């Protein structure tokens, strides 16, 4: 190895720009263990036969019993509510946040910092504090829109803002949205068609990532639903866990698996292109 090569390598190590392969595997291993221990523990717990010891599939099989729908009715209601909330929350992101971000990016770039600040705020506010503020708001919401569970999506629309904003903004930054929209307009497309045929196809990754992250956040939300006395997946899980902890853990695992699938889908979307590799 030449002196220059050695100096370059030493420089890279000193600056911390490129950890060695061993360091990378150690980091990956530690993080993997931290994440996998509770999941493996949950799986093992869901297979436990009881205090006597041993393992069984009975708890998993009980989900398919004839009276499962009755026994776990509250849980299925929670799942239904969470899925409904996920859909409405994604709708809020797509109908309110996405057009606002595109509009700011194209027409009011000076407002970008303001919008970013507003969207990041929810991540700095603890859920319990958010609920204290939302409680009086929801007394009004209930009067106007009724007490249906879907109204919780207004609060969730706020909690997912930082994640959805970041996903969409990184896509907006990666695409020359201004030139593409101007090209579309010079080719006789009005704003609606520019949005539909030019911008959205190029923002697909960001929009899908924002949607999937929103779904993952909504499926895992407990505090707001609990304190506003609504039933969702997490509150129902808590309730079930008091009577049948095995089933609660099984549903928690299934929810985790769904969240993993969503996040993996985002990763795949990030890699998939419509055609061959970049030149």
């Amino acid at each position, binding site marked *: 190895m030449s002196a220059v090569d050695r100096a370059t390598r030493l420089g890279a190590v000193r600056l911390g720009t490129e950890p060695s392969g061993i360091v990378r595997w150690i980091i990956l291993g530690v993080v993997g263990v931290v994440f996998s221990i509770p999941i493996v523990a949950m799986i093992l717990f869901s297979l436990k036969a009881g205090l006597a010891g041993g393992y069984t599939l009975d708890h998993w099989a009980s989900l398919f019993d004839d009276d499962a729908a009755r026994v776990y009715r509250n849980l299925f209601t929670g799942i239904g509510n969470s899925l409904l909330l996920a859909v409405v929350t994604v709708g809020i992101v797509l109908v309110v946040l996405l057009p606002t971000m595109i509009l700011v990016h194209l027409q009011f770039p000076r407002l970008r910092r303001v919008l970013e600040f507003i969207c990041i705020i929810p991540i700095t506010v603890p859920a319990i504090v958010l609920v204290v503020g939302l409680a009086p708001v929801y007394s009004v919401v209930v009067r106007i829109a009724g007490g249906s569970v879907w109204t919780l999506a207004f609060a969730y629309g706020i909690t997912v803002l930082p994640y959805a904003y970041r996903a969409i903004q990184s896509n907006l930054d990666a*695409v*020359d949205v201004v*030139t*593409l929209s*101007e*090209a*579309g*307009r*010079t*080719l*006789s*497309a*009005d704003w609606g*068609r520019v949005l539909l*045929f*030019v911008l959205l*196809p*190029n923002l*697909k990754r960001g929009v899908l990532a924002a949607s999937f992250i929103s779904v993952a956040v909504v499926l895992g939300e407990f505090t707001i639903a609990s304190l506003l006395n609504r039933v969702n997946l997490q509150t129902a899980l808590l309730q079930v866990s008091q009577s049948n902890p095995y089933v609660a853990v099984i549903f928690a695992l299934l929810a985790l698996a769904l969240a993993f699938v969503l996040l993996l889908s985002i990763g795949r979307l990030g890699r998939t292109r*419509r*055609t*061959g590799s*970049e*030149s």
Partner: protein
Amino acid sequence: MTLTAPTRTMTAEPGSGATVELRGVVKSYGSMQALSGIDLVMEPGEFIALLGPSGCGKTTALRALSGLETIDSGSILIDGVDVASTPTNKRDIGMVFQSYSLFPHMTVIENVEFGLRMRKVAKADRGARAAEALEMVGLGAHGARFAHQLSGGQQQRVALARALVTRPRVLLLDEPLSALDAKVRVQLREEIRRITRDLGITTVFVTHDQEEALAVADRVAVMRAGRIEQIGTPRELYATPANPFVADFVGLTSRIPGEIDGEVVVVHGIRLPLLGEPQPDGPVFALIRPEDVALATADAPGAIAASVVSSSFLGSLRRTEFALPDGSLIAVQHDVNDQPEVGDTAFLRLRMAPVAASARQQ
């Protein structure tokens, strides 16, 4: 609302371009005036270049013409109709941008078809027309590719085909060659000129490259600080610049101290005809072109002694910079076989060509 702009075929129809007129167009950004009352008339089928330094307002003028920028006052007429308040998508224009603007999620043929699709042209018809447009720019075999699979020059060719396939009344080119390498740039500018001439389309070409503007345009408008300083054929601009800015900006000039004496400029004892408006007697800088200076022998009448400062090989000729006795620098283009060394002394002779002059403080 359905767009009813005409969609002509790609068959050559010389003279089918529109008359374009800018009347007193003013555009400001806050306190900065980007366009200070631009007046410009373009004949059908004419190829006009807007030339000027960065920030002179040439791109703003083009964007105002396209509708991508609104104007504060004035009129923009296409075939006599004021389109100043008409949105971009209804102006029937084609535009090629400086940055590659192909839609990355579409194939080349889908990109070219886009404008026809927006104008609700039947699918079979638009496929044939898009293929014809791609053939026109020499990319008929690349229809199934995506933008990222093309070189920069090919992408701009596709952008040109996409802009022309609808046969717009006016073609706007916003520095379309600036991101390309030198050889491709020259090739593509010739191609653009040939195609626009064949189609007879009125074309506005924005560039800061004077060589590019002079090479392709029927007329060139030289802009500075939101105004058109001069508009004319490339020959007129070069031979008879209206003012020192144009003389300095178009072509290469050396600023040599001299004195106005009536209708002539006296430079190192040589009396050269003054270009443009008469100026009061007094000190000026004479703006002398390299081709108006020649190497001479010591005994030639009016020979000026000078020393070589630098010399560059330019292929078919050589450009050498000399320092005159008063310290000013003058560029000379001469035969490549003359190879002066830095520090050499030589003699120069000024040709009796008219020169522009700009004021000089004593």
